[in-house]
Structure formats: C-alpha cells, structure tokens
C-alpha cells in the first residue's frame, strides 16, 4: 500500500477528456496583478477559444510542430552566426535562408496600445526575440492581421529614427541594411535568397500598458519599434512581436524594465497574464529562483542551469558534469521543450515504462515519437515530470505541460530532441 501511495504522489490521474483543448473561453479569474510600479496585460493562447486572432481555426499538431522546428533552426542559425568569423559569414553557403518570418510557432499574445491616441495591436510574446515590431500603414505587402494596421501618421508621439543618427548607426550594425541611407528614415531590410523577408524602418513611440505608460523619455533611448512595410511572413493573425530578450534593442533593455513575469494559461482556454514590475513581497516568497547565466555569447537570452529531470519521482541517471556542459534556455516563443539526444532517450524510456499499459499510437510529425491512443480509457495515469534547476528549483510540470494532444487517439509526450545537425 505504501508503494502504491508513493506511486500515486508521483503521477497524475486525470480524465482523458480533460486533456482535450477546451472549445469555450473561460474568463473566470481573479484580478490581474496591479499596483504601484507594475502593470499587467492579458495573455491569450493564439489558437485557443479566447483568441480573437484565429477565427475559430487552429493548425494541426503537425503544422504547429513543423513551425516550431523551423523557428528553432532559424534561431540556432542566428546564434551560430555570432560565433563564426566574418569571412565565413559572407559565403553563400552560410547565408542560405533561415526563413524567420515564415515561422510562427509562437503560441501566446497580448494586446498593447501604441502611440497617442492609442492604437491597439496584438503582439506575440517572445523571450527569444529582440526587437518589438508591428506592421505599419502604408504596408506595401503585408501578411494578414486581425487588428487595423498601426498608422504612424495618426500618432502624435511617433517619430522616425533618422539615418544620420547614432542610434541608426548602432541599429544598422545589428541589422545590416543594403538600402541607401536617407536622412529621414533608418531602414532595415532582412532578405533571404528564396525571396522572403521583412523590410521597414526604425521608429520610436509610446507604449501604454494599462494605466502605466512606458514612455520614451523614461528610458535611455525611446521605446524602439520596428515598423514593417513589407513582409512575406505570416503571424497567423497577430500584428507583430514583443521582443522580450536581454539584447540591447529589446523592450526590456530599452525601457529599463528590470522585472517581469507571466503566466501562460493552462488549460489554454483560460486567460493568462504578463506583469511588468515586481510583485509584492508576500507573493514572492513562493517563487523559487535560479541564476541567469551571463556569458558574452549567451547574454541576450535567458540561459539557466539544468541539474536534472525526474520521471515519476525518479531522477534520470546523468552525472553533474553532464549538465555543466549543457546550454539551457527558457523561451516563451518555442512550443516544445527540446533535450539533448541521450537525455531525451532516457526521458522517453522512463515515460514509456510507466505508460506501458496504454496502447501506443503513431507519432506526430517527425518530432514527437511517444504517443498513445487513449480512446479505450476514461481516466489515465500519467507520471509526473519534474525539471530541476540550479539552486534547488524544481519545476513540477502540469499534466498539460507534459502531454501534447492532437486528439484522444493521439496523445503525445510533449518533449523532443534538440537537433544536433548544425547544417
């Protein structure tokens, strides 16, 4: 009996139907975190029932996974570029396309007001992206978005960054542009050899988050906005991206936001939130912190230190030295958690062992290979997975953070291998 109790505390027993994505938006929730020095916004799953972007349609799991994989490759490519010599970067082989703007696996968005008077745009939350950008009017060739296009001419606080400015020189260093510099606009032009890309200009404006304003003059530099005029990408109804990483051009750095937090809703029918500013001390005592690693080559992302993974209460057998070699990053824009191949194999093996009574199903795409057909069951017992980080921080996953569900006949372990093929 004791052994059984122990097993139960290391597993979830849930009804199979509760794993299915909800079809009705559940808006019940206590008030958003507010108060002096902080402001909150709703966070909504792009494909969930509370979304105003998806028009009731959701991509298949395969499509979501394919986009997630593409995003990972393009991000990996970007990271790699910084580590190689300039002469190699100029070779044709190296600059072969990473179609960043066609990749839209990001799942969660928030609505912010830009300009004065306010114009509302839906931006995807991305702690793995740098610049905050939106499509601007007039847009010569833009992807479809649900909000009206942001119209700079109607904002009294909007201002273009001149090309002859120091800021523009810095930006062109970070985002090279082939365009000639004219005095009025600081262009960016991200083009790929397959013809896709993004072009526009850099600007500054005011962003309003609830009652709190993040104004340009509060910052070292004004709030930076990439104004897209031409894009061949697709953000599935969103207007752009809120770049939340630690690079010099992100909203976090530019506006000197020193603290933010979010809750991505689960089940994803309900609403979550993002809060800018520190929470009160009563609440923060329940938060467990792990250090963000700061090394020059990793500094723009939120890199932390993994120390282990447990499945069903049992830690996977990897030595401490194995983890010290790992680069570990948290990313709100990536969908599926990725692990090195040996670690994924161990996780999969432990998970399958504890799920052996359930009928296996075909994998989802080439990415998720451990799926189950649960049509014959009313309830399912799923082993708890806990991810351990430096400082004794344990992240015990929600059951919906363990499984990815296409249908009752295809319920998959929501982890995948981090691709090692740098080509």
């Amino acid at each position: 009996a004791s052994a059984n109790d122990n097993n139960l505390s290391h597993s979830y027993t849930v009804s199979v139907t509760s794993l299915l994505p909800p079809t009705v938006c559940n808006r019940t929730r206590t008030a958003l975190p507010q108060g002096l020095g902080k402001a909150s916004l709703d966070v909504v799953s792009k494909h969930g029932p509370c979304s105003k972007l998806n028009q009731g349609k959701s991509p298949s799991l395969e499509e979501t996974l394919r986009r997630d994989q593409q995003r990972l490759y393009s991000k990996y490519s970007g990271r790699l570029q910084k580590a190689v010599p300039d002469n190699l970067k100029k070779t044709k082989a190296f600059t072969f396309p990473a179609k960043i703007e066609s990749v839209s696996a990001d799942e969660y968005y928030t609505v912010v007001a830009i300009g004065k008077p306010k114009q509302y745009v839906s931006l995807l939350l991305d702690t793995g992206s740098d610049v905050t950008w939106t499509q601007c009017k007039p847009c010569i060739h833009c992807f479809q978005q649900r909000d009206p296009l942001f119209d700079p001419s109607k904002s009294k606080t909007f201002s273009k960054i001149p090309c002859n400015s120091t800021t523009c020189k810095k930006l062109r260093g970070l985002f090279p542009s082939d365009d000639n510099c004219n005095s009025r606009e600081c262009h960016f032009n991200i083009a790929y050899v397959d013809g896709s890309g993004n072009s526009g200009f850099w600007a500054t404006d005011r962003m309003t988050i609830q009652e709190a304003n993040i104004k340009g003059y509060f910052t070292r530099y004004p709030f930076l906005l990439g104004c897209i005029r031409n894009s061949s990408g697709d953000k599935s109804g969103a207007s752009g991206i809120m770049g939340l990483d630690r690079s010099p051009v992100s909203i976090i750095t530019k506006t000197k936001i020193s603290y933010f937090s979010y809750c991505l809703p689960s089940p994803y029918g309900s609403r979550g939130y993002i809060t800018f500013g520190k929470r009160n001390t009563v609440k923060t005592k329940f938060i467990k912190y792990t250090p963000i690693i700061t090394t020059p080559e990793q500094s723009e992302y939120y890199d932390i230190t993994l120390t282990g993974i447990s499945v069903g209460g049992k830690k996977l057998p990897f030595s401490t030295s194995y983890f010290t070699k790992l680069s570990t990053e948290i990313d709100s824009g990536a969908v599926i958690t990725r692990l090195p191949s040996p670690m994924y194999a161990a996780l999969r093996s432990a998970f399958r062992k504890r799920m052996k009574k359930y009928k296996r199903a075909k994998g989802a795409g080439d990415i998720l290979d451990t799926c189950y057909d649960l049509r014959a069951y009313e309830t399912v017992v799923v082993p708890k997975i806990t991810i351990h980080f430096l400082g004794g921080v344990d992240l015990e996953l929600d059951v919906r953070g363990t499984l990815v569900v296409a249908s009752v006949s295809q319920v998959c372990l929501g982890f995948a291998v981090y691709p090692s093929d740098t080509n």
Partner: protein
Amino acid sequence: SFLLGNVQQRGHEVHYDVAGRRLGFGPGNCS
C-alpha cells in the same frame, strides 16, 4: 542544448528578474 518551451511553462508563473539576473518559477493556475 536544452530549451524549455512554452508547453512546459503552462500553468506556472515565470518570473524574470532581469536586474537581479535570476529566473523564478511560482505557483500557477494563472489565478
């Protein structure tokens, strides 16, 4: 590399103490 995606973050508060260079996980349910 290890990448923690948003599926696994669901239902938890994730705290970015950028100035303090630390990342925290809090109680979830978004409530």
